[in-house]
């Protein structure tokens, strides 16, 4: 029984760390899909780019780790803003197939660029000393870095909720998600709202990619290799909400870890099976609105 408890704690802890990273990366995708109905398969590109920016900022510019994380967020937000204005905005009204192809094209390009710039090797992350080693809690040792990961993600989640629920920007955003036409007609500049939201969401993905570099290795195939998980978080959680993807990300993080821990012979089978089940039961996701 004691052993069982021990493993339960392990799974909850590692699963939470993984889930939190998934959430920070995917929440932007959920909002853009809910808001603009845009199936951005290339969302993982922003996460990967965030990882690379952080690694370069540390190794070439010698910036300390927290600053490098911030740089990753800002750089990716800015780049995504440019992409939004130049490319994405042209396809808001387009069909699903066009969006899928366009974003797969973006993935191909980014994979190639990443290879050219960084080579094919996984990039090592040099964590500062205070994040290495173990952190003792309740008589157990936890890797310090993952404790940090959970804490930082929790702060981000709290910030997001405050931003969406308590600020006027958040109110406009919620209004636009609920009814775009109505929001426009009461004078909300939805175009600008989209741009800002897209940039913020992509920036968060960049930050998530940088934060999670130890868990989801930064390498050129990143946007392909992890696409399924990001999409599952969004579709299982439900688009256009903050809460849905959060629950879904934790669910996936913990299930995935539990599978690796207890049932490694099943691999990711359970994750996908659960996804199928949930989507059949609620096609709009757990917290998505069915209309």
């Amino acid at each position, binding site marked *: 029984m004691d*052993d069982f408890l*021990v*493993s339960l704690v*392990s*799974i909850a802890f*590692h699963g939470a760390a*993984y889930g939190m990273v998934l959430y920070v990366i995917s929440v932007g995708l959920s909002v853009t899909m809910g808001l603009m109905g845009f199936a951005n398969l290339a969302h993982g590109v922003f996460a990967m780019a965030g990882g690379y920016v952080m690694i370069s900022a540390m190794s070439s510019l010698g910036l300390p780790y927290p600053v490098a994380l911030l740089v990753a967020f800002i750089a990716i937000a800015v780049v995504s803003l440019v992409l939004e204005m130049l490319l994405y905005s042209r396809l808001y009204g387009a069909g699903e197939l066009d969006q899928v192809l366009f974003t797969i094209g973006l993935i191909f390009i980014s994979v190639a660029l990443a*290879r050219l710039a960084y*080579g*094919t*090797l*996984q990039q*090592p992350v040099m964590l500062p000393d205070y994040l*290495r*080693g*173990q952190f003792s809690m309740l008589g157990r*040792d936890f*890797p310090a*870095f*993952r404790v940090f990961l959970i804490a930082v993600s929790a702060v981000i989640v709290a910030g997001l909720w405050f931003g969406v629920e308590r600020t006027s920007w958040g109110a406009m955003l919620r209004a636009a998600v609920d009814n775009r036409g109505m929001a426009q007609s009461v004078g909300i500049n939805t175009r600008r709202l989209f741009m800002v939201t897209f940039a913020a969401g992509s920036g968060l993905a960049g930050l998530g990619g940088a934060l999670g570099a*130890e*868990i*989801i*290795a930064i*390498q050129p*195939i990143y946007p392909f*290799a*992890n696409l399924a998980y990001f999409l599952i978080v969004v579709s299982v959680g439900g688009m256009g909400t903050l809460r849905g993807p959060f629950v879904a990300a934790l669910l996936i993080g913990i299930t995935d*870890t539990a599978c*690796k*821990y*207890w049932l*490694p*012979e099943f*691999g990711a089978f359970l994750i996908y099976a659960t996804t199928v089940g949930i989507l059949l039961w609620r096609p709009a996701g757990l917290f998505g609105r069915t209309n």
Partner: protein
Amino acid sequence: MKSIRTLLTLLMAGAIGLFHAQAFAQTIKIGVINTYSGPNASLGDIMDKGMKLYMKQNEKRLPPGVKIELVIRDDGGANPDKAKQLAQELIVRDKVQILTGLIWTPNAAAIAPLATEAKLPVVIMNAGTSSITTMSPYFARVSFTLWQSSFPTGTWAAKKYKRAYIAVSDFGPGIDAENAFEKAFRDGGGEIVGKVRIPLANPDFVPFIQRAKDAKPEVLFAFIPAGPQATQIMKAYNDLGLAKSGVKFIGPGDLTPDDELPNMGDAPLGVYTVHHYSAASTRPANKSFIAAWKKEYGEKSTPSFMSVGAWDGMDAIYQLIIDQKGKIDGDQSMISLRGYKNANSPRGPISIDPLTRDIVQNEYLREVRKVGGKLANVEIETVATAIKDPWKEINKK
């Protein structure tokens, strides 16, 4: 890009050779299938360096008028379908006379029927699943088998520890490593408290290693493909504080490849591995090999056991070319390979078993220590001398 440059260099070297050679100069085409892209691109690169170093050092050994052209192809990783297609093209379009390289077991397995049909001698420079050499009579291996390293690891570990946990990558070589270690460890009276097979494409080792830790073994035996994954699993071992809770980490040398050690920090200090080659070995043949390597590729570059596999593979290929005076015939080549011996390889004395066409070599126990401020696999003792592949020996009886 790298492969074009390689090709150009070789073509140029070939052109210069042609200039010197007599009118009846002849070119032997050697197909090389290795990994130059994808997450394991570094492996193809470090093997290329081994091959080229050998060719540079031994230019004069070839019979007069014979030159060698490498036709290099990228399989992108464990990608059997692709490897098979490349081999087919190398045979049909490029008309290569010898095929070599082959980092991955699945890729080698996929081309076995082709080698048999085309009577094409294939010198396997890396892939380490025991059964590969049984798949085609035209396969010969100069690298290693996982049984060769993991079986002695088990025998040695059973003398020191009683409870072991096994974690291996879920593909041919991993399963070989698991079976070999488990058999030897149990035969020696040890107990396996748990084991796990980790998917080959795996982003995060922590949950698997956490599970190993929670099973409270005295020793954790692990195999993963030597390369970036080695660094990742070492990181997980360190992050979870297994050393602190008294769990020893051991495995075949793939766990601490010489070229990955610099990426690992101090985590692998005190890790024991058994393998056929360490760059830190003090054998004279190895010292001159390392010196030549550093001279060619710079102080920072370190060869790994894969480079040595490539280096020795080229030696075997040169031998078969010399034996046949440059006229390559499939069956004659195999006769030559079956009798291949080198008492002075960087890894010590090696030969190819005439019966199984598989490598015979020594296995050394090594510990990761700091030598001159850098991590190195320091050879402590020879745990097996001139060991044949134990899997084939056991299954023979």
